[in-house]
């Protein structure tokens, strides 16, 4: 028989206010296997912990049940504490009589009875608890960062500066991401490229960072500390070992095609780099456009053009992964009410950034796409698809209020006589110096803020007629605009589903990667060793992105700080005497922790991969898959204790 001690916490009046502690103590005293019951005002305090440890020694206890608050708060406290008197931490259990009992009841009688049942059921669990030892695994101290935007770069730099190797994979040929496309950043109006390019160069030149651009991760296996990834390097048709970035090939290429980087407002050639400051400063060939006239080959001084290049796969082993895959804008095609992308002078925010950018297609002169005229009336539409659960995206994209204010300000700086109108639902300017910035735009720049939505717009006589409502004056408004700029929602990247499957990270209903805990673990995913940064997780601005990326990097560094990892031993094992190798659990395991060993005729578990979700235990038709210290018998006994 196990000798179990039960320690009941008053938690001040948090528990004692609703639960009759003395009565509870006497009720538990008689319960089988319980050899000692004691209560104390604050069990989690130092004297409280000492009291438990003293009794473990005096009464020679095998296990303890602490009846207190939620295990998510103090399980660790007590488990660490009992180790000081050499009790296995897994022989210490928490009976939650606060959140699940005293806090949610008023009736003292009922609450006391319920607390007794909760404690008894925990005693039943404890009776069959086994002492467990943490599982140890070696750590490969090399990180993989996916996405070369500001989030990925920041994470990579932080990890690299801590002395660890980093592989940075970017799907485009240059790092920089969306931030490289921006003109100036709110609220300080720093030139975006001016603050970003030094970082890009630092990434490129950092001895600890291996940059693999124009590539994508196609396969991931392994587990925290020991991931194996396959990276597909897309054919560039240029030998980057030889390419010196002189750009002679670009100048000579006869093909012109709309530039993705310029949001189709400018052109690029078939052989190109996305923008002049590209890092690495190398060119690639767009085979869809290339006519293979070989002019580039003729003009290349280093003989780098190689039309025989093929996609190749490189394999890497890393210990941690940061996902910083960024975002895309919701396409105007999805907004038929705003022209569905058919009206040339209706553009999205990113396109307007390019029109404002000194290095953009118009060298920073605001010219409208249709005829290149300088627009005199510009309408900005906020929430163009955001906060619209019926038709579009239900969420707030967080940055649009600020960038629209910035757009209007920058437009007024460029076109002094111009008139800027902003349709908005509310102004959300929560951020350091953000509200002051918006006030400045309203008051000093004389931008007209109209609270209301635009119902529709159409082209007429070279203008875009915008029909909306100003709900403050309760009047319908019609503006004949030269240019309309929409703040369309921030969406996860197109293939987020594949990414989520590849890395086994869940996504929310809007497609954003899900963090382990919305408040307390915002940069971790639920798969240990995989971290999140930037807009892949949720829409956010640059300061937040950089902060989150640094957070993710510091998690990676913490992981790398020891050469061994400890994995919680509460995993779902296999009873080899029962397992018939039916294999049903193998397909059920979301962490690929289970494999069928055909030779032995049983399923084997990779203990490090197991996250103890219990899916296999539910699925196992023979009862061979049992979660340690949460076995079917334990759960059944617990239920019996509650019902009985």
């Amino acid at each position, binding site marked *: 028989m196990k000798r179990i001690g039960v320690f009941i916490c008053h938690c001040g009046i948090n528990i004692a206010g609703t639960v009759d502690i003395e009565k509870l103590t006497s009720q538990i005293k008689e319960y089988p296997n319980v050899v000692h019951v004691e209560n104390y005002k604050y069990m989690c305090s130092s004297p409280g912990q000492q009291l438990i440890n003293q009794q473990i020694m005096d009464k020679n206890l095998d296990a303890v049940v602490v009846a207190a608050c939620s295990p998510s708060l103090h399980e660790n406290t007590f488990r660490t504490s009992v180790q000081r008197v050499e009790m296995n931490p897994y022989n210490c259990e928490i009976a939650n009589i606060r959140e699940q009992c005293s806090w949610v009841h008023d009736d003292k009688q009922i609450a006391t009875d319920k607390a007794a049942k909760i404690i008894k059921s925990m005693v039943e669990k404890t009776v069959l608890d086994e002492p467990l030892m943490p599982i140890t695994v070696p750590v490969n101290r090399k990180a993989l960062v996916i996405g070369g935007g500001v989030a990925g770069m920041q994470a990579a730099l932080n990890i690299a500066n801590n002395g660890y190797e980093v592989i940075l994979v970017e799907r485009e040929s240059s790092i920089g991401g969306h931030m490289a496309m921006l003109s100036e950043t709110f609220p300080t109006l720093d030139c975006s490229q001016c603050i970003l390019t030094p970082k890009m160069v630092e990434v490129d030149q950092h001895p600890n960072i291996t940059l693999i651009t124009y590539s994508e991760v196609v396969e991931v296996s392994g587990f925290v500390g020991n991931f194996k990834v396959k990276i597909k390097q897309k054919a560039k048709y240029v030998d980057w070992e030889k390419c010196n970035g002189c750009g002679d090939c670009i100048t000579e290429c006869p093909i012109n095609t709309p530039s993705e980087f310029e949001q189709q407002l400018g052109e690029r050639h078939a052989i190109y780099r996305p923008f002049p400051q590209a890092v690495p400063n190398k060119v690639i060939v767009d085979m869809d456009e290339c006519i293979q006239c070989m002019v580039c080959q003729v003009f290349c001084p280093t003989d780098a053009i190689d039309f025989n290049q093929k996609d190749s796969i490189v394999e890497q082993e890393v210990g941690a992964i940061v996902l910083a895959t960024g975002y895309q804008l919701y396409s105007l095609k999805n907004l038929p009410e705003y022209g569905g992308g058919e009206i040339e002078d209706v553009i999205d925010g990113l396109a307007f950034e390019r029109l404002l950018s000194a290095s953009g297609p118009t060298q920073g002169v605001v010219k409208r796409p249709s005829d290149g005229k300088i627009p005199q009336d510009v309408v900005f539409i906020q929430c163009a698809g955001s906060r619209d659960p019926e038709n579009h995206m239900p969420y707030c994209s967080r940055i649009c209020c600020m960038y629209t204010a910035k757009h209007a300000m920058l437009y007024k700086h460029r076109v002094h006589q111009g008139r800027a109108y902003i349709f908005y639902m509310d102004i959300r300017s929560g951020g350091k110096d953000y509200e002051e910035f918006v006030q400045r735009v309203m008051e000093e720049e004389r931008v007209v803020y109209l609270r209301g939505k635009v119902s529709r717009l159409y082209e007429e006589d070279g203008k875009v007629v915008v029909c909306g409502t100003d709900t403050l004056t309760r009047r319908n408004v019609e503006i004949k605009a030269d240019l309309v700029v929409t703040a369309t929602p921030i969406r996860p990247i197109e293939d987020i589903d594949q990414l989520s499957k590849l890395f086994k990270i869940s996504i929310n209903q809007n497609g954003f990667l899900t963090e382990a805990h919305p408040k307390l673990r915002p940069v971790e995913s639920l798969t240990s060793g995989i971290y999140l940064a930037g807009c892949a997780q949720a829409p956010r601005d640059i300061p937040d992105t950089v902060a989150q990326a640094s957070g993710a990097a510091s998690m990676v560094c913490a992981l790398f700080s020891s050469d061994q990892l400890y994995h919680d031993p509460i995993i779902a094992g296999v009873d080899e005497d029962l397992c018939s*190798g*039916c294999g*049903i659990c193998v397909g059920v395991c979301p962490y690929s922790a289970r494999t069928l060993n*055909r030779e032995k005729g049983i399923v084997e578990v990779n203990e490090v991969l197991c996250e103890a979700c219990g899916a296999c235990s*539910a699925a196992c*038709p*023979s009862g061979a898959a049992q979660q340690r210290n949460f076995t079917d018998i334990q759960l059944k006994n617990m239920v019996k204790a509650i019902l009985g």
Partner: protein
Amino acid sequence: MSEQKLKPKVAFYWCASCGGCEEAVVDLAEDILDVVEKIDIVFWPVAMDFKKQDVENYSNGEIAVSFINGAIRTEEQLEMARLLRKKSQLVVAFGSCSHLGGIPGLANLYSREDLFDTYYNKLPSNDNPRKILPLTETETDKGTITLPEIHRTVKALNQVINVDYYLPGCAPPPDLILNAIQAILENNLPPLGSVLAPEKSLCDTCPRKDSKPDKILIKKINRISLTEIPPDKCFLAEGVICMGPATRSGCGERCINANMPCRGCFGPTSAVEDQGAKFLSALTSIIDSEDEQEIKAILDSVIDPTGLFYMYSLASSVKRKYQDFK
């Protein structure tokens, strides 16, 4: 005759059963002669002329072992089971019906009134214009005649008496019967309450196990009667419901070898309490869809799920009566 007295006394009895378990004893063929050499059969209504009185005459515990097959659904069966328990040192539940309730246990899906009504009134072969139903007592001009009461619930043997061992199967295969008798004779028995069959489930010994894919995921549930399954392919992987993963092995894969999926007659392993629920849990885990509607459609295509998953074990399941399922 003194030698005869030293032989252990053995009783066989049948309750609600089809007679297949009796056949299984006869199936021992010439081996039965060896068995009869070593034991003294003192009660076996199907084969020999013994009366209840004969059993009553034995002192308590005088019979070494009673093998009782069939489920318990009448007062008479209950009475005999209790009597044999009293007179026997060991009671072995013999066959699926005694072990788990078996197919008669499916009667628990209906009320006794419904069963009577169907059986005595509605069946097309019946001619019962006066709607006479069985009664426990009937007055006739020659006096009162009685019938044992039919219970409202069909029960497994261990729901009415203590059972020491279980010989599973519909019917138990001869080798397991011989092993059990051997073990009893040699007093080489596992802990009380054990099922006298291997611990692992049927996949362990299934001749088709090599055809199993690395991950079993199914998109469509196929009925065996409408599907052509190659004789070497895992049924479940082909979408045919096979209870094998949730069923104890030891049957000799008789159904599998006849190209029929396992129906679960050996019951669950020792770690599982409710075979049907466990299999259902396993099946729902391998449905290859993320779409709620699609999952529902796939699962709805299982015809008679209770009859399929609980074919042999309904009476001994956690929810013994269908009324509770509703």
